[in-house]
């Protein structure tokens, strides 16, 4: 539906923002442009609604050059969502949503019906929210309205420029999921810009990774994870840049060096509180850095109702499963393959606690060697993660 043909943008001063970009977006696809800041993704986006004009090359919508359209008409037929939301503060929620329909000359009745329909779609009661002003909404609600405003005149194509970038993580996730749900329902063609790879993975039908004005990889999320085009892509999606063979790794490469511990003389109530705060079900018991034992939530329960002071040392299991730092991964994997064990403590020669390995640590290893033909080597790890033979 939209096609970039040899698009180049050179800013005054000579900065090359986009270099000979070729890209085609099919109708109904959500395509995410992702990359570090300055990679040209926002410039690419803004050339579609002609907020930025390319230095050379052509962009086509339905095989027509966008320069051949009247720029105002073109923009009214493309939804646009920006990071800073950009709701007009002096207009109500309803008037903000109805902005483009109003510019297109819809009747009052028709735009009002559309506003109600859209608000209902994202679970905001029109009776409550239509008359409010942007300043009376939370950031998340404001950006919901920002998205609805882009949808209002029912455009085929929507541009989103880091729309959720300024929101707190919880709200961001809510809006991402909401957008995903809306998209499944509406099947718009969406070009979405972000620097957050997690967001791209969640939303995209196709991801275009850009760096310094050129496309590094253009593929589905699954393909990018399995076959990253190069080290840049690999590191960008959060994998180790150079996937190592599992055999080259030892325990100290994968262990969590910040295990949750407790002193031998501490009380049981404190132990329980610590588990709750750190969201774990067992604590390693140490005395002056030397591993003494392990205490699990289930060890505590029988004692909690008793009205006496009992210390952790009295209830702990004396012999936790331990390995030395230099141990191979397969050794740990073997130990974890026993479903009853959740963690393996890592100690040095003097039995001083160095870290801890859990199943989650092994998943990290698996991800890093995924798609590199190491299935055989991974066998024992997979079994360990599976939690039993």
């Amino acid at each position, binding site marked *: 539906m939209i096609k970039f043909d040899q698009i180049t943008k050179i800013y005054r001063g000579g900065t090359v923002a986009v270099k000979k970009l070729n890209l085609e977006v099919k109708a109904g696809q959500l395509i995410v442009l992702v990359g570090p800041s300055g990679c040209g993704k926002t410039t690419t986006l803004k050339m579609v609604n002609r907020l930025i004009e390319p230095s050379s090359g052509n962009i086509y919508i339905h095989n027509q050059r966008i320069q051949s359209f009247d720029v105002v008409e073109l923009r009214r037929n493309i939804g646009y969502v920006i990071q800073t939301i950009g709701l007009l503060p*002096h207009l109500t929620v309803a008037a903000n949503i109805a902005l483009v329909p109003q510019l297109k000359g819809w009747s009052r009745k028709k735009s009002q019906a559309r506003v109600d329909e859209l608000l209902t779609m994202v679970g905001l009661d029109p009776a409550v929210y239509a008359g409010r002003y942007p300043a009376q909404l939370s950031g998340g609600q404001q950006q919901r309205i920002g998205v609805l405003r882009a949808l209002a005149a029912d455009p085929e194509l929507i541009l989103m420029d880091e729309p959720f970038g300024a929101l707190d993580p919880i709200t961001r996730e809510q809006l991402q999921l909401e957008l995903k749900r809306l998209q499944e329902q509406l099947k718009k063609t969406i070009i979405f810009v972000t620097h957050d790879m997690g967001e791209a993975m969640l939303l995209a039908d196709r991801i275009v990774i850009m760096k310094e004005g050129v496309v590094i990889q253009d593929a589905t999320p699954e393909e990018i994870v399995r076959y990253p085009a190069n080290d840049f892509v690999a590191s960008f999606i959060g994998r180790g840049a150079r996937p190592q063979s599992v055999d080259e790794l030892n325990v100290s490469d994968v262990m969590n060096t910040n295990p949750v511990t407790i002193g031998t003389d501490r009380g049981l109530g404190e132990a329980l509180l610590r588990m709750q705060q750190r969201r774990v079900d067992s604590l390693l018991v140490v005395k002056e850095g030397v591993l003494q034992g392990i205490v699990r939530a289930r060890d505590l329960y029988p004692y909690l109702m008793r009205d006496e002071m009992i210390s952790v040392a009295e209830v702990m299991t004396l012999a936790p499963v331990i390995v030395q730092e230099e141990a191979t991964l397969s050794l740990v994997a073997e130990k974890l393959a026993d479903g009853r064990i959740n963690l393996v403590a890592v100690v040095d020669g003097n039995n001083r606690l160095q870290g801890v390995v859990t199943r989650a640590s092994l998943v990290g290893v698996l991800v890093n060697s995924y798609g590199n033909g190491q299935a055989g080597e991974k066998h024992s790890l997979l079994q360990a993660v599976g939690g039993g033979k």
Partner: protein
Amino acid sequence: MKLGMVRTFIRMLEYIISNGSGFAASFQEHILILVILPVSWAILVAVPLGILATRYHSLERLVMGVGSVIQTIPSLALLALFIPLGLGIGNKPAVVALFLYSLLPIMRNTYTGIKGISPDLKEAANGMGMTPLQLLFKVELPLAIPVIMAGVRTATVIAIGTATLAAMVGGGGLGRYIVRGLNQMRDYLVLVGAVPAATLALAVDFLLSQVERWVTPAGLRLYNERES
């Protein structure tokens, strides 16, 4: 001493009451001819100039420069300047001078009011397909109107005070009593001009501050409260 002040004040009131119609005419002349007339013209000229200045950088430097120069000329000198320049004596040179004086505050506030709007907001409006005129009337002016009104308020209050000088070049208004009082060494007569002029300035300042609030769109008021 205190008693003397009170006596002067009472004599001022007596004068105003016994010369009611003459005083009312001067008061009215002061407001209509020397304040509302020049400030209205200034609004009609300065607001468009301020808007144009936001569009053309060269114009900005020109109009702001000229405005500042006018503002630095002492008011009495500016008034007197128009007599030899062919406007003669009377209200005419005063009205022209007050008009010129009012230009800068209104122009500057129009300019800063519009320039102060977040570029993101304008980009969003542009991106949705507003024409430049729609951008001006639907976004820029509604958001800048409180700042523009503040400029009008400043210009008006300055004009009320400066207008008392009109009498020096043969014009009317409340300044007439001040000039006459000074010539005849009658202190209560000076007050007949000065006290109402000062009271008027304070009252108008308050009134226009209310107007400023009233013309601020409700949503914008909430927005500003939240920002501050």
